């Protein structure tokens, strides 16, 4: 028991399984230790919004009883799991980081959560995030910002800041986040952990609170590539509750990622490096070199429409958000502020329930969809999205994977960009394209800035080729451990 608590920040899916099966510790001991550690450490980072001791201990008891009778041992047996608070959990408060859902208790579980728990994962709590996943710094949460465990006066990135911080801090072994414009990869990069945005449709969105439905993804955070692959494997695949979830075969990530990378063709898109500063650039180029020494060939490629991604994204994402967030009206599941009429009640409830960034995006989205502007903005953006997606299709006829930075800079100071929405949006400039094209992409830690802040390497592959993405990430990660 004592051994378990001091090991928490270094546990992996594999080491937990070995520890449980050799009876070094029980799932109950691990769950109790993880809960106690997470509650204690939360004072410094504010990563968790809600703890789930009852649910965790019930799940742990089930794992222990299965192990005792040599019964079912799932791929995530006993693994302490945290879930971003935009993903619903039955009977467990799900706030979306918003005042308007402060007291919302969902009546069902998201498919992703259901599937991970079915493999033995132990959900210990819900994680802080930017309100409705809108933000790049986790400063837009109604329940206070999350602090980066690697440097407490800095942001953890966003919007899945709590999910990245918990894994970095060791308060959860794996977590779920969501990514609409970079909300998994950017915080993973800022906190020095692995974060994966799978192909659009690879993981069911059932139970993921809708922000921009054509861009939203659920994906895992972990401390190593193998754990992230194991989590994705457990939740991937068609779900009848989400018509956009794909039938495409999943394959076996663990086997595929261990294949040698020699001979793989990697592309560096020049548009991602043109204005990249040395602080991040030096680290990325060193990682590229490392992959070259492993036998990969590297060539420069072009994704010519990259510079239009930000504009394209902020039209499509806000348009979809303005429509999706119409449901928070003070009637069905949100906090109500009364008014003299129905419409006054709507206005008051929404006006006081939403934070500044969410209002800004609802306004922008409503504007670009409003009569007379639809073609100029929304349709135009959808056409540009086609061009951005085609850039990737064309590039993947030449290369097997694309390497790039995740963010133009490492974690910035809390408050630094809060008053300048456009500057904040620009921090997602390298991640938006992956969501727009729907291709799988991830961040794998690849070094530190001169100040000691983590930097992530971004890897893109073609639709449904998570296997090659993991293969590149795993080979790189393993080569740096030697």
């Amino acid at each position: 028991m004592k051994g378990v608590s001091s090991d928490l920040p270094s546990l992996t899916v594999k080491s937990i399984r070995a520890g449980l099966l050799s009876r070094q510790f029980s799932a109950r001991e691990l769950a109790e230790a993880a809960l106690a550690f997470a509650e204690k450490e939360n004072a410094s980072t504010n990563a968790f919004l809600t703890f789930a001791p009852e649910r965790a201990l019930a799940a742990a008891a089930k794992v222990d009883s299965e192990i005792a009778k040599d019964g079912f041992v799932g791929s995530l047996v006993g693994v302490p799991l945290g879930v971003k608070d935009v993903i619903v959990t039955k009977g467990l408060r799900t706030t979306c980081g918003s005042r308007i859902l402060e007291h919302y208790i969902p009546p069902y579980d998201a498919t992703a959560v259901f599937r991970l728990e079915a493999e033995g994962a132990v959900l210990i709590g819900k994680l802080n995030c930017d309100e409705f996943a809108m933000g790049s710094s986790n400063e837009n949460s109604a329940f206070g910002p999350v602090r980066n465990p690697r440097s407490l006066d800095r942001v953890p990135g966003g919007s899945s800041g709590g999910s990245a911080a918990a894994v970095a801090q060791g308060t959860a072994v794996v977590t779920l986040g969501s990514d609409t414009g970079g909300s998994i990869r950017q915080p993973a990069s800022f906190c020095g952990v692995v974060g994966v945005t799978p192909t659009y449709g690879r993981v069911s969105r059932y139970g993921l609170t809708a922000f921009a439905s054509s861009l939203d993804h659920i994906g895992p955070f972990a401390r190593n590539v193998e754990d992230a692959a194991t989590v994705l494997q457990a939740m991937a695949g068609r779900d009848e509750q989400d018509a956009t979830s794909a039938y495409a075969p999943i394959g076996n990530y663990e086997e595929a990622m261990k294949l040698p990378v020699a001979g793989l063709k990697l592309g560096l898109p020049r548009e991602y490096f043109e204005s990249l500063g040395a602080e991040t650039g030096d680290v990325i180029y060193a990682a590229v070199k490392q992959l070259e020494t492993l036998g990969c060939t590297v060539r420069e490629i072009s994704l010519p429409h990259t510079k239009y991604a930000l504009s394209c994204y902020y039209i499509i994402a806000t348009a979809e958000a303005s429509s999706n967030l119409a449901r928070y009206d003070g009637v069905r599941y949100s906090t109500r502020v009364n008014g003299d009429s129905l419409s006054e009640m709507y206005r008051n409830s929404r006006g006081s329930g939403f934070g500044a960034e969410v209002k800004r995006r609802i306004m922008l989205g409503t504007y670009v969809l409003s009569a007379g502007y639809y073609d100029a903005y929304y349709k135009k953006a959808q056409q540009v999205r086609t061009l951005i997606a085609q850039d990737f299709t064309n590039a993947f006829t030449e290369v097997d994977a694309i390497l790039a930075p995740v963010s133009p800079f490492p974690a910035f100071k809390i408050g630094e960009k809060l008053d300048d929405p456009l500057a904040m949006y620009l921090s997602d400039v390298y991640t938006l394209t992956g969501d727009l094209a729907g291709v799988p992409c991830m961040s794998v830690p690849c070094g530190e800035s001169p100040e000691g802040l983590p930097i992530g390497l971004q890897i893109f592959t073609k639709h449904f080729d998570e296997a090659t993405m993991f293969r590149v990430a795993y080979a790189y990660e393993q080569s740096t451990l030697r």
Partner: protein
Amino acid sequence: MNLTEGEVRYVADLANLRLSDEEVQKMSHDLSQVLTHIEQLNELDTTNVKPMAQVLFDADETGSLREDVPHIPLSNAEALANAAASGGGYFKVPKVIERS
């Protein structure tokens, strides 16, 4: 591209959002800045480019259809559990139709 405070109030009305005067002022500034940035899309000629509404993959034409199997839906009580006000099995809202 400049979005006036009057336009901001109009859009806020469409979105059912109550904004304070201070919020309207800041919104006018912030949205104008973002809309100006967005104008760069006009540099691109997109005649004959098909709009992309969704990430689409190869699938059977009936790929998203399923068998119509009966199942037990959410109960009335569960559906109402998070309502701000409910009664008689319904959501309650302020009176919509005024008596003349």
